[in-house]
């Protein structure tokens, strides 16, 4: 069975909510929709305080090439425009909407009917995806239409669909593959048309045998799409690792997947593409896994963007008494939240509630030069060396040792028997090296 070669780890999977069907979270009284939710330039706000909006109405416009539209996820009245803390801990401008009813924009097809026939041209597909504010839902939130615009001189050959969900605990993609499979497959066909490729591969780790079986049966009806079962190994969901696992190609340092003829999209993104193109439906809701060992009811919830995370936790049985940490995302790459009032955004794939006793890091002792961090690094880096260079502020050397190749997967810190906070140092170093490179450009 296929997998990527270099490095990798096996954290406990803990997929507690794998069996929980997707439930619709009731509408909250208020939503807080950050104006910028994706990678790239901030979007421009186009509603004012007091405006009455419908579900799916555009409220912020992505004007730069790499930026994305943002739509209202509810109907109601804009009560405030204010700064809120987002899931990354930054303060961002957000539109606060008091929810009244649930009236959708007339353009949107809200019916349950599955529309299989793809009538749009390539250009229309790209335009629709951009208009509907679709971004990568795997976590990186890269605007999806940009990925469809293959740069001059490059050619896309394969579309890879990421159904790996290698983060422990998270199950939203798994549920989507089981419950929304046809729509997702049509979404994949749309992406194939948009990219003008003949082959698409859905990579799924073999710890989801039901999803593999289910999709393998269905793909016969969708020419060009193939399911690729993969050995379980973290971080297989990393773009470069997935490409390596499925095609055997390695994206060179500092380059994008298109360099080796590949474009990668997440299964959730494929579904959002289906809804955008076939149903005219903007990205206003997504599936979020709410999970944790002490949580009463680990769940997969269909949630409107802008819903405070506290509402999701309430629905899943309330915050357990022994809670120590709440993580936006999975335990390997997720960010610890400072408050439960932050809103769900397009990039929120899960909320993990960790008990107090698992929330603290282990004590840090001397590095024993065991090289375990090196052997698990999926990018073939030397985390121990890079951390040292960052600590000693030797950023130029760190750049030469390819610190920017680090995908921040956390495998090194996860493995280090001395408990060294390698990734903390690496983030600092990457940041500094980035600044140095930008300054160089200015001179």
């Amino acid at each position, binding site marked *: 069975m296929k997998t990527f070669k270099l490095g990798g780890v096996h954290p406990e999977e803990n997929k507690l909510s794998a069996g929980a069907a997707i439930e619709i979270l009731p509408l909250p009284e208020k939503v807080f929709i950050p104006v910028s939710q994706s990678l790239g330039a901030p979007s421009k706000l186009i509603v004012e305080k007091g405006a009455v909006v419908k579900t799916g109405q555009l409220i912020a416009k992505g004007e730069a090439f790499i930026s994305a539209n943002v739509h209202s996820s509810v109907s109601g009245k804009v009560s405030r425009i204010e700064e809120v803390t987002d899931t990354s801990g930054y303060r961002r401008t957000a539109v606060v909407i008091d929810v009244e009813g649930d009236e959708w924009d007339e353009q949107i097809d809200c019916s349950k009917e599955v529309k299989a026939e793809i009538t749009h041209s390539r250009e229309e597909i790209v335009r629709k995806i951009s208009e509907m504010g679709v971004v990568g839902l795997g976590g990186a939130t890269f605007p999806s239409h940009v990925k469809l615009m293959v740069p001059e001189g490059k050619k896309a050959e394969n579309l890879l669909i990421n159904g790996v969900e290698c983060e422990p605990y998270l199950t939203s993609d798994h549920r989507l593959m089981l419950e929304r499979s046809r729509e997702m497959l049509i979404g994949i066909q749309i992406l194939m048309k948009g990219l003008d490729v003949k082959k698409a591969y859905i990579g799924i780790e073999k710890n989801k045998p039901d999803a593999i079986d289910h999709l393998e049966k269905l793909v016969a009806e969708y020419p060009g799409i193939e399911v690729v079962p993969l050995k379980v190994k973290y971080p297989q969901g990393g773009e470069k690792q997935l490409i390596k696992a499925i095609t055997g190609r390695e*994206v060179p340092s500092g380059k994008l997947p298109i360099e080796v003829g590949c474009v990668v999209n997440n299964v959730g993104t494929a579904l959002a593409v289906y809804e955008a193109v076939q149903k005219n439906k903007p990205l206003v809701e997504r599936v979020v896994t709410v999970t944790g060992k002490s949580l009463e009811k680990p769940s997969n919830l269909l949630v409107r963007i802008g819903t405070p995370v506290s509402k999701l936790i309430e629905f899943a049985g309330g915050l357990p008494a022994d809670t120590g940490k709440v993580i936006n995302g999975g335990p390997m790459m997720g960010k610890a939240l400072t408050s439960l009032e932050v809103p769900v955004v397009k990039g929120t794939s899960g909320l993990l509630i960790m008990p107090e006793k698992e929330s603290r890091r282990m004590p840090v002792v001397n590095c024993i030069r065991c090289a375990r961090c090196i052997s698990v690094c999926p990018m073939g880096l030397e985390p121990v060396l890079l951390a040292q260079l960052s600590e000693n502020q030797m950023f130029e050397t760190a750049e030469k040792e390819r610190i920017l190749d680090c995908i921040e997967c956390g495998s090194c810190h996860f493995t280090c028997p001395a408990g060294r906070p390698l990734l903390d140092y690496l983030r600092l170093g990457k940041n500094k090296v980035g600044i140095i490179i930008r300054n160089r450009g200015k001179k």
Partner: protein
Amino acid sequence: MSILTVSGSPHVHGHQNVKSIMYGVVVAMIPAIFVSVYFFGLDAARVIFISVAACLFFEWIIQKYLLKGPLTINDGSALVTGVLLAFNVPSNLPAWMIVAGALVSIGIAKMSFGGLGKNPFNPALIGRVFLLISFPVQMTSWPVPKALFAPGVTDAITGPTTLGILKEGISAGKTVQELMGSAGFPGYMNDLVGAQGGSLGEISAIALLLGAAYMFFRRIITWHIPAAYIGSAFVFSGILWLVNPAIYIDPVMHMLAGGMILGVFYMATDMVSSPMSPRGQLVFGVGAGLLTILIRVWGAYPEGVSFAILIMNAFTPLINKAFKPRRFGEALPVKKG
């Protein structure tokens, strides 16, 4: 819940920590400890006890009064050094010499560099070499165990090791075949199970291999250094043997005799003092293998493992600079379409 804990990712951790690794090594040495006590009797237990106690004591007192850092004696590393040092000396070594060896191992080779993880050389080997150079007579007169199934040391008889017999004999003009056929020569089988003269821990290849297998299984060591070490030593000694079997020992005997197995699996693999990238580890292993045979055949001492590993320890920083891990995306030509 009042305040949420906030820290950077990752939020989960693997199962290994420094302690579990160090105690894993100790567990791996248990079979060899039993074998040494079986063949050398309580003397062996005495040496191990004194060595371990002295190592722990020096680590504790230096950490507490000189370095003034957090206590580290229960991380298991001083225990490992203690047992390894005992494994590297004869069972009749006087107690004070063992203590002196422990002081050099822990005090000079480890703590003066800043403690665990900072030492460039394997502490137990530094201790052994210090003893060997300072007390060559005591360090090379080995109690000889009786044959297998007759435990205990042949009363008050000391004699040379397998390699010692061969080295002396060869330089006196005898052939290897004559020497191996002579009375009192341990032979392959006794070398394998441990009925030979030698340091405490090196006599039984089987017990050591058992422990090594355990360390592989627990993922405490990887195959790179041992495979490269044994491979290069085997090939090099094999070539010499093919050239002239009368004056060169055969490669299998080289593997079984002396400190080869102990050195390869328990000391060359010491993570602190060996290279970090797999490529670097292979280079390290090959170098140590060649040096070991070189010293055994042409050096002044019959045994070369300790010196070979220490010399390669000295090269480790250089190897780390020269042999980087294979970076993702490097060396693989991008195949297109």
